[in-house]
């Protein structure tokens, strides 16, 4: 009888302790979403099906989205998310797009009519221009999200892969172990 009483008392004590800790050490905000957002490439392209990287991060945290829906993040990004969340990495979901080499958008100035539709589409304000004025892409700010390509009524925007320079060149990975 005493045993039952002691065990119940212990349970009650632990319950109180846990409740107090939940209250006392509660973290405001949603750190998991922040952590997921920190891993995402911030292209804000919407290929994942969500209007930007933060909504996608929130969806992953809620459990509404899978981790393999971000093509700009590539396989590396999927693995980083898998590591963060402690789940198995999986291949990129084909229906959300394929991983493409890093590119920037370029406006063909001979065709641009100055309609500003691309300026409104760019999520990071990387296009310079105004109504009836020439538009141009600031290459250093362009994330390669391709959101400007579709709205252009004269199809004057195209994506060009970034060329490797001495500054961006990296030593290659050595071959795998012979065994």
């Amino acid at each position, binding site marked *: 009888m005493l045993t039952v009483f002691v065990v119940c008392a212990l349970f009650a004590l632990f319950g109180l302790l846990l409740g107090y800790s939940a209250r006392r050490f509660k973290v405001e905000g949603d750190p998991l979403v922040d952590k997921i957002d920190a891993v995402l490439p911030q292209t804000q392209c919407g290929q994942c099906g969500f209007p930007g990287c933060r909504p996608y991060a929130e969806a992953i945290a809620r459990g509404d989205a899978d981790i393999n829906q971000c093509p700009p993040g590539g396989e590396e990004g999927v693995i980083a998310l898998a590591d963060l969340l402690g789940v198995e990495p999986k291949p990129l979901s084909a229906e959300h797009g394929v991983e493409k080499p890093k590119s920037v958008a370029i406006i063909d100035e001979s065709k641009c009519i100055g309609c500003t539709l691309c300026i409104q589409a760019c999520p990071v304000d990387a296009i310079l221009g105004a109504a009836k004025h020439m538009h141009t892409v600031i290459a250093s700010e362009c994330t390669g999200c391709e959101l400007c390509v579709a709205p252009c009524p004269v199809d004057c925007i195209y994506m060009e892969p970034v060329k490797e320079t001495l500054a961006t060149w990296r*030593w290659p990975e*050595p071959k795998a172990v*012979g*065994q």
Partner: protein
Amino acid sequence: MRFPTAQAPFLAPVNSVNRIMLEVLVALIPGLAALVWQFGPGVLVQCMIALLAAELGEAAMLSLRRRPIVPTLKDYSAALTAVLLAISLPPLAPWWIPAFGTLFAIIIGKHLYGGLGYNPFNPAMVGYAVLLISFPQHMTAWLPPKELSGSALSFADNWNAIFSRTLPWDMTFDALTMATPLDTIKTQLGLNRLLDEIQSGGLFSGIGGRGWQWVNFGFLLGGLWMLKRGIIAWQIPVGFLAALFAVALLFFLIDPAVYPTPLFQCFSGAAMVGAFFIATDPVSASTTPRGRLIYGALIGLLVFVIRSWGGYPDGVAFAVLLLNLAAPTIDHYTRPRVYGHPT
């Protein structure tokens, strides 16, 4: 003129894995010779069976894993595992003991972890531990040393004993085999006898027990040669023997009636072969210099603990396996100070 490009360094490396393994095998020869001299050529038959099992097991696993077979077999690591296991077995153990033990060591102790370089445990000791726990009778049936046994068995006799379990004339296995000195001490201490009495028997003349001290001495020679050749680092054997000696000395001084002398501890059982050949297996041991000292010392300490108070007469195998578990942690906490960094 066009040239092929490659990356530096362009000088041919001086070491190779198979050279290291071969030199270790060569270093085993003095100890092996001592074993054959004291306990007969049975150990050679055990080596042959183990070698065959190791190479077959490794080849089978490599083909299953779709890796190149002949280049990998040529690194002699499987051969070394086989010989290390074979010399720990009683000379007259039936043939399926070395076969099973070696196959277990190679397949499960090595390849299922990923092959050479990936096994966290010493494969020979994995095989030995499995055999010891599964077949304790066979694994403790040693032969008397030459000085005691009188008539020696010929090679053919050994062969028959191992393969067909037959002995010449009407010798029986029970009558033929006897326990090792360490085994004797453990059982007799359990029967509340004292060391003076136990060690007065013929088995115990000399420092490590008759016969066994020569075996240990042989492995010590081999080990010193390896140190000189730079095959192994000094930290593990020195740590092992120093710790074993120190703690044995401590307890010997406290109660010499129950604890053997430190010299006895260092020259009996698998102490020398453990210090120089088994604990120094690079893949499963600690890798930093300070870490190796700690690793070796803890193994020595554990060997003493198991020998004195554990359930087995000789604790080298289990001590090594336990410290294999701890090696990554020891490495993590013994990182050397990098140039330019504070202490």
